[in-house]
Each structure stands twice: as C-alpha cells, then as structure tokens.
C-alpha cells in the first residue's frame, strides 16, 4: 500500500465514512478508551509538561543534528556487522530490499508492523515478484487477509472493523469455524502465524527508535511478533524513516515512556526490544545477517522549513485519538496511510498537495491534537500553515473565505458533521442566514438548499458543543 489508500475523491470518502455506522461507533468508542487510558497514564506520571518539554527538546536536537546522528548510527551498525543502506526514494528502498531477498533465494517473509514499509509500498513490490509476505501484527494480519483493506489508524490499524466482520473474513479466507470472540479469533491467528514465523526466510521490521550510540534498533510491541520476526528468520531487514533515532539509551527510554503512555496508556508495552547487529558469535537464534534501510522519501525537504517540527513525531497517535474530525469521518476518509491530524500535516508533505490538499481542511483547528502531542508538535498551527500555502499556491483569495468554503465542503457532506463543524463557519455563514436556517447557500451548499433548508450553524463553539455532548447532549 502506498501513501495514498484510495482513488475516490475526498468528499466521496468522507461521505462513505459518515454513512458507515458501525465504523463510526467503533471509532468513537476506541477513541474514548484510548484517550481515557492515556489520561490516566499521564496523570499518574505527574509533571507531564516537563516530560513533553524533554521529549520535544530531544527530538529537536536530533533533527537539528540529523546528519551527525545518522552517521554515528551507520558507523555503529556497521561495526557490529550490520549493513546500512541509505535510500532517498521509495523505489531505492524497495529495490535494495528486493535485491537482498532475491540474493537469499528467500520465498517467505514475515513482517512486523511498520508504517514506513506501507509508505514505500513494499509488500506490493515483493508480491509482484512472487514472494509470500505475511503481516504478523494481529490488526495488520486481519487487513491483509481481508484483501488488503487499508489501515485506518496508525496504532490500531483494524479499528474500523467489528469482531463479526473479522469472524466472517476468517471463515471465508482461513477456514475458521469458531465464534466472534476476540480470544478465539486471536488464538486461531496465533496457530497459523506460529508456523509462518518458524518457516520464514526473512523478517522485516520497522523501527520505533534507533539508538545512534550503540547502533541498536528499538522495537515496541505488545504481541511479541517483532521479537519472533527478528529471532527466527536467518535474515533481518529493518526499515526506518530517517528521523526515527535518538542519541543514546537515555533518550531512548524517555521517548519509549512517552510513546507507550501516549499511544495505549501503558507504563511500558509488553515487549520493548533493543537489537544490535546480527546475532553474536555462538548465538543460536537471531538473524545471521542484518540490513538497516534508512528512508528519506521526502523527509529531507521538510527540514529547514516551517514544517520541520512534524518530524519530531513518534507515531503514538494521541492526536488521532482526540481528533473530533477523525471521530466523525474515520481513518479511511483521509485517503492516506497516515490519518488524523498528524496525517493531515504529514501526507501533503510526503505525498504532495495534488493528492492531499483537502486534508489540512479536515480539521476544526480546535488544537486538541497539539495539546495531546507528547513531543509538542504544534499540529493545528501546521494545519493552518498548510492552508496558507494551498491558498497562496492556488492564488485563491481572500484566505478566510476560501477556508470557510473548504470547511463547508467537508461540513456539507452531512448535517451532523456540518453542525459539529468549524468555529469559522458561523461567522462565514451569517450573510446567508435567515433565522435558524439557510435558504440560499453558497457554493457547495447550493444544490442542497435548492430543495431544502439547511440548518444554520449555532453560535455554540465546538468545545462547548463537545462538552455538552459528553454530558449526554444530543450529538445531532
């Protein structure tokens, strides 16, 4: 799967999301649980602001000295016998990985979850040359079995599916005969994948954080799949986005603490693993050969720009879990492997405005994302900056009007979303209002208001609305 997950137009994707009732229920309940867990984990830690400042300072220091730390990492990986390949493009990265695999005459590849391998479309390029690629993260595996359904969340990729749907997919594809109980579904997958772990020739992983001082790769999971992917096959290939590194174990532990608390509300996840080079002499398990592929794929062009801070991201998805727009439209609406606020900032930068220009408008600019970010990325500011760039590039003025229209495009897709919509809408809409409804809507509203009246946006701000809603107010 490349960055882009859908060829449908943005409005069509949003419309589909809004009409998928199960998905919307699943997303809102997942958001609440993840958000609640994160708050508990953050509260019990205390001094969260200091933690965030520390995380931000570490990430900023690494980005400002990225060449130095990447050099140190490469030297230390190589000293331990690992091979390092710097790939400027997705094609270079996939090409190198393919060469390694073909050189090993490998047939079966097991993978642990990695967003960057999705970004470089790795699975498709391996499958195209007849290789069997097995995703081993439970969520990713479910999506793979379901004819490569795209992920809708960067931590819980199958969040949009319910257990009955998963049971049906398993029945059809895996000769599954048990019930929809998550325990039974999971046990079935454990049995199947255990055989794959033991018979695979190559293991491919992503990288949560590489550690420059020791040339280590840090992996964070709950399932233990990354450990089996790296313990059993003879060759290990790790793919990392070039910014995903820290200076030493000291900073590694700080960022891991921020990541696990922010992503899933755990003090630490079940498995945090630091792998250094291939197996040591005399070791029986672990790979005989280790390759680290460091991917740029558009990241370097973000450095030195007003968007540099987005590279601080540690992929925890806390911003996604608090986003009111994501809650309503779901992950697939973004049409990118990176959904939510982080996706709305990152996708246009890595994938270009042509495909992702609508995403910066899929936001209310409520700043909940910025507040949630454990490394203090000013996400809502970056979304606003994107809008400025888009307006300037497209020479559309005045800016506020264009933005209001865009917000409309999104809002008009459904009365509910509309009502929930941007703070800016009430002001922009006032000229068209008669009482509490709109009878002659502009632009995208026109076709609607030709046949019916459109509910006018209330004066209530989003935050007030959300607060009332949480107290039991009516969502629509």
């Amino acid at each position, binding site marked *: 799967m490349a960055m882009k997950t859908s060829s449908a137009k943005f409005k069509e994707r949003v419309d589909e999301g809004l009409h998928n009732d199960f998905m919307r229920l699943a997303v809102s309940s997942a958001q609440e649980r993840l958000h609640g867990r994160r708050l508990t984990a953050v509260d019990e*830690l205390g*001094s969260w602001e*200091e*933690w965030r400042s*520390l995380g931000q*300072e570490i990430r900023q220091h690494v980005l400002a*000295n*990225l*060449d*130095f730390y*990447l050099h140190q990492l490469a030297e230390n990986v*190589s*000293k*331990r*016998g*690992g*091979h*390092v390949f*710097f790939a400027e493009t997705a094609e270079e990265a996939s090409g*190198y990985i393919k060469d390694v695999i073909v050189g090993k005459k490998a047939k079966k590849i097991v993978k642990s979850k990695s967003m960057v391998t999705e970004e470089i479309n790795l699975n498709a390029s391996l499958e195209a040359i007849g290789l069997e690629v097995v995703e081993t993260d*439970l*969520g990713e595996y*479910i999506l793979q079995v379901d004819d490569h359904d795209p992920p809708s969340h960067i931590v*819980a*990729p*199958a969040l949009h599916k319910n*257990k009955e749907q998963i049971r049906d997919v398993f029945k059809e594809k895996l000769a599954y005969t048990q019930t929809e109980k998550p325990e039974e579904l999971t046990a079935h997958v454990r049995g199947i*994948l255990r055989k794959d*772990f*033991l018979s695979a020739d190559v293991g491919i992983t992503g990288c949560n954080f590489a550690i420059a*001082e*020791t040339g280590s790769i840090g992996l964070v999971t*709950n*399932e*233990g*799949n990354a*450990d089996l992917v*790296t313990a*059993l096959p003879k060759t290990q290939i790790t793919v990392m986005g070039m910014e995903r590194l820290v*200076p*030493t*174990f000291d900073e590694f*532990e700080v960022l*891991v603490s921020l990541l696990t608390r922010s992503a899933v509300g755990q*003090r*630490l996840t*079940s*498995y945090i693993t*630091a*792998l250094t*080079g291939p197996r*040591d002499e005399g070791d*029986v*398990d*672990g790979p005989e050969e*280790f390759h680290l592929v460091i991917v*740029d794929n558009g990241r*370097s*062009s973000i450095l*030195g720009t007003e968007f540099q801070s987005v590279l601080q991201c540690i992929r925890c998805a806390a911003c996604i879990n608090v986003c009111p727009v994501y809650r309503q439209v779901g992950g697939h609406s973004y049409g990118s492997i990176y959904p939510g606020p982080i996706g709305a900032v990152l996708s246009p930068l890595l994938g270009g405005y042509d495909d992702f220009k609508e995403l910066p408008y899929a936001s209310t600019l409520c700043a909940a994302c910025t507040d949630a970010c454990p490394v203090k990325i000013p996400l809502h500011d970056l979304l606003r900056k994107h809008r400025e760039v888009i307006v300037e590039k497209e020479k559309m003025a005045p800016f506020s009007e264009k933005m209001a229209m865009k917000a409309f495009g999104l809002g008009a897709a459904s009365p509910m979303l509309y009502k929930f919509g941007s703070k800016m809408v009430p002001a922009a809409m006032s000229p068209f209002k008669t009482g509490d409804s709109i009878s002659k809507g502009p632009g995208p509203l026109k076709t609607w208001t030709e046949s019916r009246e459109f509910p006018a946006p209330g004066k209530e701000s989003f935050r007030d609305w959300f607060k009332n809603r949480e107290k039991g107010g009516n969502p629509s």
Partner: protein
Amino acid sequence: MKGTIHNEERFLKNISKNLGRPTMTEGISLPVWKNAPQKEILKKKTPHDLVEELEEQCKRVHTAFHLTDSKQVGHLLKQVIEQLGGGPLVIPDDTRFSEYKMNDLLLEEGAFVWDHQAGRKNIEKAERANIGITFSEMTLAESATVVLFSSKDHGRSISFLPSCHVSIIPKSTIIPRMTQAAAAIRSKVAQGEIVPSCINFITGPSNSADIEMDLVVGVHGPIKAVYIVVEDK
C-alpha cells in the same frame, strides 16, 4: 566483520543542505537537557518499597507475583510449574540455577538446557516447551518489567516461544524504572563492553487489543507470565 554502508555521503549532504549548513559527522556533544522528570520517579523508595511497587504493578499487567527466599525458591518453582500444567521446560545455561539449588528439580522435570552447540534443536525444544524460565538481569518496579540479555547460553526464543514465561527476580536487580536500566547499559558501553545483540524489556505476557479494543492476553509470545522475587539475592 564490518558491514557495508551505501549512499551515505549523498544522503547526508541532502540533509545538511536543507538544514542550511555543511555536513557534520563529528563534533556534536549531547546537551544537558533542561528537564529530567524521569529521574524523580520512585527516587526515594527503599528496596522494600520497590518490591511493593512491583507487586502492585504485576496486577495491572496480568502477571502472577510470588515473593520467596533462596531456600524456598526451588519448592515454590515446583508449585508454579505444576500450576502452569507442567513441562516441557526450557532454560538458559545459567549458573544461578545451581546456585539457587534448583538443579535437582529441573533435572527431575526434564528441563532442556539451552546448548549453543546443538543449533536449531534449541528452537525446536523452545517451540514445544510449555514453560521457559529465565533470570531477570534488571527489574523495573514502575512497570513490572524484567530485562533479559541474549547470549550463546541464553537464546532469545526461551522467553518467546513457550506458552508460559517464569522469570526469577533476585531482589537486588530491582530498580525504579527504565531510566536506571538505560544508565546501567550506557555505563557498560562507556567501559568498552559491547551490548548484547538482543536486550529484552518484557512486561507480563503478550497481548493485543486489535479487535474492538478488547484486551486479549496471549498473542504471539507467552500466554501466561509469573514473576518470582527472591528476597535474599
């Protein structure tokens, strides 16, 4: 043998160009970070307090907790093995098993001792084992985490392939959190030691919430986890 490095110069040049300066591959030292909240956590706790913290946290990570001493640990381990449904067992080649006088028990149970000369057979044994038993090198009280170092005598598979993982925790290995573990690893590096090819921070059994955010304990790694703290070690 040193590994290869491809395309580094061009790649780094691209980075430094965008950062608006020449490429730097040396001369950067770590700053003193302005905040250090991680060092305050469980800072003034006694070893006894840390054991309590560990026990409390075990409840949250689906892990059975036992406290014993070196005289009783063999007896307790026998009970734990029974409760988990018995063998087969797989263990690292670790002198502490005899130091803690567990040899007879492990022999009686037919435990397979990791043998680096036996190659792939080790993995087959671990795959068929019901229980893998390890010693924690460092133990993080805050998160109930055991730390394992791989070596030729301690395969990675021991703590991943069996259905159950029992970790024996000498009380002296208990530290507040990952902060102290990172510092210990760094000080070894500073003294010229090389880090083991695999360091595992393991917290309880494997789990997933990928289906409807419902927690399922036992995914790819062990389904059950038991910690045994040995008070006088």
